[in-house]
């Protein structure tokens, strides 16, 4: 915490290495949040870059009482939601979020294929949700934040976070049920889920 404050002070004074330290510390969480929110590595990279540019530009307004990680993730969340809204304005349907790019070849092609399938399934499910519901799920599963931390980051109450998570799960289950009416894929989802947990 103190180390972070020192890094922020030094970055504000124009120390390139200090700012690079901040980027290195938070590039993982920011990139992951952007990837799960936007659905493609290229867009996630663009979003991560823009987030850190904004962090640099707004560093002087950072309140040291606030957790730096929450502040950085809030900037990333705002940017992703803004980007998704703009994407919706150019009428890209939610179900057609950019597909996952080909994964790196793994040792076993069967496992690689399964991992790709699982990724596509996750991104399709996330893309079926309105942005704010997608965001709480991403914060819960990929940032491992508590209700309290999510509420602070989103500027809302814990009960609203709880309700939003509950609603997001209901919506995803409804989405799956609707899909099964069109084509029964339950078996596949079960297999994917089983492989997901060792």
């Amino acid at each position: 915490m103190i180390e972070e404050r020192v890094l922020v002070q030094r970055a504000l004074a124009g120390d390139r290495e200090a700012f690079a330290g901040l980027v290195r510390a938070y590039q993982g969480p920011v990139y992951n949040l952007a990837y799960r929110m936007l659905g493609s590595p290229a867009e996630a990279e663009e979003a991560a870059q823009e987030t850190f540019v904004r962090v640099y530009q707004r560093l002087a307004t950072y309140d040291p009482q606030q957790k730096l990680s929450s502040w950085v993730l809030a900037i990333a969340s705002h940017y992703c939601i803004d980007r998704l809204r703009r994407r919706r304005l150019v009428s890209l349907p939610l179900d057609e979020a950019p597909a996952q790019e080909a994964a790196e070849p793994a040792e076993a092609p069967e496992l690689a294929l399964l991992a790709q399938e699982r990724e596509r399934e996750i991104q399709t499910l996330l893309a079926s949700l309105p942005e704010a519901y997608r965001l709480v799920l991403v914060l819960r599963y990929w940032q491992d934040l508590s209700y309290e931390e999510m509420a602070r980051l989103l500027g809302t109450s814990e009960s609203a976070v709880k309700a939003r998570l509950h609603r997001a799960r209901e919506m995803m289950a409804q989405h799956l049920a609707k899909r099964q009416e069109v084509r029964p894929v339950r078996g596949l989802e079960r297999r994917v889920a089983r492989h997901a947990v060792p």
Partner: protein
Amino acid sequence: MQCHDVHEWMSLKLDGRLPPDQEREMHAHLASCVACAQEWATWRDLAALFEGAPPAEPPGDLVERVWSRVHARPRRSALLSSLAAVAVGLGVIGALFLAPWAPICRLVVGTLQIPGMLRVASAVVGDLVHPAAVMAEALRVVLRALLSPGSALAAMGYGLVLVAALAAWLRVVVFRNAGVVRWSESRLAGWDRSGR
């Protein structure tokens, strides 16, 4: 106990926030309600799918890319952005109102006995400004035609100009600096309630 209450508990259970006594009640309900038991199985599958997904790896050169973008775009305060937006707006309005005076200015400059280089410089500036003044004059004529009182177009014209000005101001000054999530929050509060 209603199925909806059980769904709330199921969500809390997946987040590790359900007290043991409620967990017992939840499982008792699931044992007797097929619909909720199916829903619970789906929710657990989804949770397992998400929890099993490995984190995505950021590109190795992110720091360098960020740094080059930081230098390509110098720090700019919200106040400066707002002032720039206001200055551009005032510039456009000023050009519109000063357009009819451009020929008079040229005439005045022409009649003045300005010596040497200064005269050449004023002529060059005059030539550069002239096309802009003509365009501004044309725009002014169109706007005047749109906003002429008594016409059916007048009300529409006023409305359009007002809405466009307001939208531009909101976009440039308010949303650019405040972000959009706060706006979404109030809308979401409604969604949360309706989903209950």
